């Protein structure tokens, strides 16, 4: 690559912002890992750290989900989206100062939010548990970042847009819309009775489907062809897949309310739309895997791509599992069980995070000009793969056991139903330890290339930080 190639210039313009967001994302990932371990340990031994009110199970569990989604997920989304949009628009990232300022506000808001949860100011709304005081800061900082991302997109060189741009832009724009709807319905014009639950459930699930999912899909649509040097196979389907997700996902998520004290049409629509979700799932799966399997050797040899394909495979398989679990006959067993944990971790870890890892390993060497040691990356990949699979299997099998035993009215609750799923909690605790180490390695990998050690490194790299 010559010094003046346009990609190089764009990467240079994204350098400060990308480094900031991805290194703070890394810190959140570690915080979430620590909280995840604490929560898992408390399920295997309820007396673990039981004397600290700050760390009672309900709070830790909720703090972990929020740190994971907003801390790690949010920062990673900003980093990946800004860089991919800049690359696709062939436009430089502008307003780095404002982006970083907004990023600092976002991170401070989440920090105070999590402390608020631990200190007993939880709001009780799904995925909006952070105290309402931090919501304005989150929204404002998010809108600043979205605005600057749209500026990049508006200054694009080619007018025609492609799949990764649709998904990334849609995710950027959907989040504030969802957030405002939830804010209005839950706090400003508080809904009465179980309407609250309909709304907070709709928000919590849509957050996964309309924010994390499209970002990961968009990144996959960008990375797979970029690394393989091929076009997406059956690309003409992508637009159908995109609009299917846009039209169906916001309807399908409410199937989790099956049987509850809400009008029956709500979960019924959710179930029908969940079944219809097989179309977008099939489209994304075909696009990704038909392309990737044309060159399996290259997928295997490229570590970023291995992460991405793990993510897309996990998306396909578990989305189909999700469709099956939304059928009322199956939901009767699986509803309210730890299969919820399976869904959450599969989406946020097995799918979204794995693709983000791939994107970071692909982007970071280009942006900083420094390579990450192969052995360290491989260690991260294999521990993550093993940890995620172990975690998901434990939650899946444990969840089915949970559901089947709970359905036997004569079995006593704690001494029989819950005692039977205890071994699975032991496995998840072990899996969270493995994942914790894995994430630590990831963060070290990232931090080492972003902040090279001034004592071991010669003069050539250390002066470049200010782009």
């Amino acid at each position: 690559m010559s010094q003046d190639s346009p990609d190089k210039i764009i990467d240079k313009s994204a350098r400060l912002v990308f480094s900031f967001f991805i290194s703070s994302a890394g810190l959140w990932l570690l915080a979430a890992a620590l909280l995840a371990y604490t929560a898992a340990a408390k399920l295997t031994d309820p007396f673990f750290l039981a004397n600290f009110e700050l760390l009672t199970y309900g709070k830790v569990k909720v703090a972990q989900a929020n740190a994971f989604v907003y801390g790690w997920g949010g920062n990673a989304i900003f980093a990946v989206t800004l860089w991919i949009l800049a690359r696709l628009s062939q436009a430089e990232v502008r307003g780095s100062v404002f982006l970083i300022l907004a990023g600092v506000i976002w991170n401070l808001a989440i920090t105070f939010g999590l402390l608020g949860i631990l200190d007993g100011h939880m709001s009780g709304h799904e995925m909006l548990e952070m105290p309402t005081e931090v919501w304005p800061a989150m929204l404002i900082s998010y809108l600043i970042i979205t605005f600057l991302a749209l500026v990049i997109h508006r200054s694009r060189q080619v007018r025609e847009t492609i799949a990764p741009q649709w998904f990334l832009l849609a995710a950027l724009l959907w989040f504030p819309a969802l957030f405002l709807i939830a804010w209005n319905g839950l706090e400003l014009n508080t809904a009465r009775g179980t309407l609250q639950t309909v709304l907070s459930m709709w928000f919590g699930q849509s957050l996964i489907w309309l924010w994390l999912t499209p970002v990961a899909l968009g990144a996959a649509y960008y990375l797979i062809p970029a690394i393989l040097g091929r076009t997406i196979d059956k690309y003409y389907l992508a637009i159908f897949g995109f609009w299917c997700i846009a039209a169906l996902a916001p309807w399908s998520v409410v199937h989790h309310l099956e049987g509850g004290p809400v009008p029956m049409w709500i979960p019924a629509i959710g179930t029908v739309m969940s079944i219809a979700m097989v179309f977008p799932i099939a489209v994304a799966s075909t696009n990704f895997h038909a392309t990737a399997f044309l060159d399996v050797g290259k997928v295997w040899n490229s570590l970023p791509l291995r992460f991405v394909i793990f993510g897309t495979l996990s998306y396909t398989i578990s989305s189909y599992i999700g469709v099956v679990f939304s059928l009322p006959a199956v939901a009767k067993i699986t509803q309210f069980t730890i299969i919820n944990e399976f869904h959450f971790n599969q989406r946020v870890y097995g799918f979204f995070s794995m693709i983000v890892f791939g994107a970071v390993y692909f982007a970071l060497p280009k942006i900083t000009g420094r390579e990450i040691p192969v052995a360290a990356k491989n260690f991260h990949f294999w521990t993550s793969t093993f940890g995620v699979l172990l975690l998901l299997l434990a939650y899946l099998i444990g969840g089915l056991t949970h559901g089947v035993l709970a359905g036997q009215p004569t079995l006593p609750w704690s001494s029989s139903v819950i005692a039977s799923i205890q071994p699975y909690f032991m496995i998840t605790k072990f899996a969270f330890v493995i994942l914790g180490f894995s994430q630590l390695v990831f963060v070290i990998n990232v931090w080492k290339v972003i902040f090279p050690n001034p004592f071991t490194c010669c003069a050539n790299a250390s002066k470049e930080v200010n782009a």
Partner: protein
Amino acid sequence: MNNLAKFTIGIFLTLGFAWLAFVVGARSQYGDLTPTAQVLNEDGSVPADAELFPLPMSGLAKQGAEEYAALGCVTCHTQQVRRVEAGFDVDRGWGKRPSVPRDYVHQEHVLLGNSRIGPDLANVGLRGYDESWFHQHLFEPQSLFPQSLCPPSHFLYTEVDEGNDVVIEINSTDESKSSRFVKPSVRATRLVAYMLSLKQDYELPEVAFVESAEEVDLEKTEIVATAAEPTGQLPEWLRDQMEAGKEVYMKAATGGGMCFTCHQVNGQGLAGQFPPLAGSDWVLGNKDRLIKISMYGLMGEIEVNGVKYNNVMAPPGIPPGSLTDEQIANVLTYIRNDWGNSASAISAEEVARVRASLDGRPAMQMFTAAELTPPVQ
């Protein structure tokens, strides 16, 4: 797709449709639900003198709900009884009927929850636990359920010496440790008030109790109709006898009756296998044959409320046939007066008289239905 403005409108439209349905539509459908009477007038109006349900929550319970939310209890506990066809909740005894939207109109924070590592709490105030039981559970769930995963909340209590009148005694399951005495904080008191306030023990125009909903034929509706008065109005001696009987019914250890394993906690039995006790002509009818079955068991075909069953009921009790006269009297009185049943109580003397009349019958020789019909009066 190339014009950002059009694209934005498109993706907001798709989101907007769902918003219209779930937020605007649902709000206009049931956003203004109000408390109502258990039974409405024929023209659909609320009777003038009727008590309106759900009852408002006490101030203390409302504060308890805030504590419940702040501690994240909703992470493991739901507060919703699902419809019968959607889950096992009613079978498990977690509620007399499915929850409906109207049950929640008084709650500022609706905490339905979506995970059940702990049991459902929608009706926890109906399970017969008293305040000190809740305090003991809150302080250290493991002192009541050794395998519970519920986090102990020692931080809501101060340990004190015995003697003070507001202290709660915590019995340890570990024999080697002596009991401890704790004083609940204000927050613990609020939480317990909240727990005790959680009950959906009233019928609404849109939902009836499940037991009576299932019984459609006339004969049984009559039985249920006579039993509508709540147990709270029973004379004290009868309540005591029923309580003792319920213990026998539910106890699955030596000295218990273990009746619930077949006839179920709700007395409904299992379709095709074990006959129901609720509304059963055998339970509410002749006393003597009921006492006989309780001593010696029953085998072979039996017709209950027009449905045939063919199974074996070993002589009740652990070990089999070990129930005392008093226990039999209590448990029979209990099954004749719960789940909507209402029939005369049975005394230990009556049981003793029947036992004497059967003198010489080999122990463990189960009765057959044929032997007991026509009714021996």
